[in-house]
């Protein structure tokens, strides 16, 4: 599965995207966040509890309790500031 980061999260993690193989006990977006935090200090900082960020699964915004089954791409990003 591909994980992508946008805006300041990309800089903090130090990666725009990465391929990950999920352990069996990671089944939701929230569980993925907790699991990704262990990958590096940058991950832990960008995905810290209480940090303001959202998620999308296959390019649709989802809540953190969304299931990951069948997902090809998960993205994490700060609140949108377009317009």
């Amino acid at each position, binding site marked *: 599965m591909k994980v992508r980061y946008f805006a300041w999260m990309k800089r903090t993690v130090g990666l725009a995207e990465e391929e990950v193989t999920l352990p069996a006990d990671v089944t939701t977006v929230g569980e993925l966040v907790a699991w990704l935090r262990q990958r590096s200090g940058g991950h832990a900082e960008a995905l810290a509890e209480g940090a303001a960020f959202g998620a999308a699964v296959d390019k649709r915004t989802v809540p953190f309790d969304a299931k990951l089954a069948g997902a090809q791409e998960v993205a994490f990003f700060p609140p949108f500031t377009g*317009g």
Partner: protein
Amino acid sequence: MTVRVQESDFDVGAELDRLTSSNRRIGGLAVFVGLVRELHVREGYHRDRIDALTLEHYPGMTEAALEEIEAEAHRRWPLEATVIVHRYGRLEPGDRIVLVAVGSPHREAAFEACEFLVDWLKTKAPFWKLEDTPKGEKWVGAHAGDDRAAARWVKK
């Protein structure tokens, strides 16, 4: 219904001509053009001068989100034509960022739908602004006023 996400500038007149050509049912067009401001007001008082703005987006998701917002506007109002053009990349003060234009038989629907589209695209389309200021780069934070503006259109 048209959505475009592009790096290059757009010609407002040409976009409006394209929107209304061959549709004689349109009686009014409401148009919003967003520009890069030279000064950014933070928390209502502190101001930073901006040298440039870089807009990042999420290709694929951006277009889908804008199309969804546009379809929602067509469900809510009797619209004849809509166009949303949003730029990304490096922009300087005075540059155009976004165009939202709505054509309807009557002005009320056009005005309301145009405001709705701008409010929702600010909170639902995946764009992020990075400001280049004399003090360095700064990611623009979400604005509570934008969330309040978008919330006005949530159906109860």
